[in-house]
């Protein structure tokens, strides 16, 4: 019996947006993808809606990243000057830099470690993470321990490295 998707939507939507945001790094796109995932769930009616949503979301984010990389290459060819004319208030720059650093640190994790960490942060249990990643349940603690350590270390290393590391 499929879950009540409206109920899952109510409970899971913010976590799914957060999960996607840390993959595509664009709040609006993350929301769009999350809604798209729910729209697909309505068509597919999976048994375990929550788990299914995260799998689909992860796939969509990966496709998006590929597409974004392609578009970026095209844009670089087309564009002659960088769009650096916009100015942002102080705190936005700070928040941006902080997000950039965390992003750069996250990208230094192995895909599997990163996935486990993001799933845990999205509120999944060890059982759910195990089902999602194919890791043994007993290995989740170790995976998360390693992921957390690497995240913190990479972040600190990035901060010591100063400005030139800020762009991930």
């Amino acid at each position, binding site marked *: 019996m499929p879950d009540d*998707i*409206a109920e899952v*939507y*109510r409970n899971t*939507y*913010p*976590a799914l*947006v*957060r999960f996607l*945001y*840390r993959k595509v790094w664009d*709040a*609006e*796109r*993350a*929301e*769009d*993808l999350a*809604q*798209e995932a*729910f*729209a697909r769930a*309505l068509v597919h009616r999976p048994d375990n809606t929550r788990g299914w949503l995260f799998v689909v979301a992860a796939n969509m984010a990966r496709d998006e990243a590929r*597409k974004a990389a392609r578009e970026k290459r095209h844009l670089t060819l087309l564009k002659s000057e960088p769009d650096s004319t*916009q100015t942002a208030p102080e*705190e*936005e720059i700070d928040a941006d830099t*902080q*997000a950039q650093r*965390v*992003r750069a*640190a996250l990208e230094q994790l192995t895909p599997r470690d990163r996935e486990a*960490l993001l799933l*845990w*942060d999205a*509120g999944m*249990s*060890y059982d759910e993470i195990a089902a999602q990643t194919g890791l043994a349940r007993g*290995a*989740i*603690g*170790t*995976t*998360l*321990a*390693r*992921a*957390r*350590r690497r*995240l*913190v270390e990479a*972040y600190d290393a990035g901060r010591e490295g100063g400005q030139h590391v800020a762009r991930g």
Partner: protein
Amino acid sequence: MSHVDEGTLHAYLDGELPPAERAGLEAHLEQCIACKTLLTEERALLERASALLGSTRPTERPAPPFQDVRRAQRRPWYARRTLAWAASLVLAVGLGYYLRDPGDGVRSVPSTPPTVGAAEDRLVRLDSSATAAAPEQVANQPPMARMPAGRRAQERKTDTRAEEAEQNKAARDSTAAGVVALEPRVQLRNATPAPAAATPNRDSAALRLDAAVVMSEAQSGEVAALRGRAVTTQWQIISRGAATTLLGTDPVGLPGLRTRRIRRSPAPDATVVVEQALDSATTIQIFQRPMTEYGYSDRAAREAAPSAAAAAPADRLARFVGRLRVEISGPLTTDSLNKLLEQVEPIP
């Protein structure tokens, strides 16, 4: 028992160690200083990793109504952005045409070469400002500022009426300026004041909360800062029924925790705080405020609601539960507050 590895400690800290293993580990930690030290280190690591991830939360907006998702075969984001861009281009071209001759306006005879040049110049400027302003500006606004102006005005009107009706009583009751005494009105309608304490569900509370690591207050300057900004006595205590009326829906809190009191903001902005006891010495504050449907508002709304912006410090953890924007505050670590915030639901 031999020494424990990090993985076990993280599972323990995450509240994911099976009960049998957990008991064994706790017995070992009692005796083994090395492992106890390691546990402290791993806890610090876990907290930092959580805080780092927490610092990259997107600005949360209320979920659009589920019917919208159901209804729409959504166009992909890039198509919509292209459309938005195209729309701004059309607008810019239109404006450029309209403004093509500032001297004579639209009545002028077809443009001479210099005015065409000027129009193009304007067109370029208009276009770049229009595209730059479109999606990013909206995304950068704090969600509180997005409440449409109409809705806010409506709320204010309701408040004003209540104020008139209860003016005498309010004048006697309220200690802080600007407090609207809604409570008497609500109690007339809702004769029994709601019970202060929800039925405690100890088991589930213990289970859910074991991930919450309580810190002593002195440990964290950040916590002290949060508390400094927190609720003062000017927030009037209200009944649960009054909170429901004010919010337009049931107030939210942590299931299984005793509700100490519910209070409302001295500002006329329908913010309510539910204060719950985690234990005898620890109170968690859950701030909540109704939002309208999914929709972004413009600058006018932000200007119409300066108190809303002030009441929503950006660094407090926030999420949406139904149509309530919910923020959490308490003498706990960011990670714990994060976890607790995820569990917030309408209280019975």
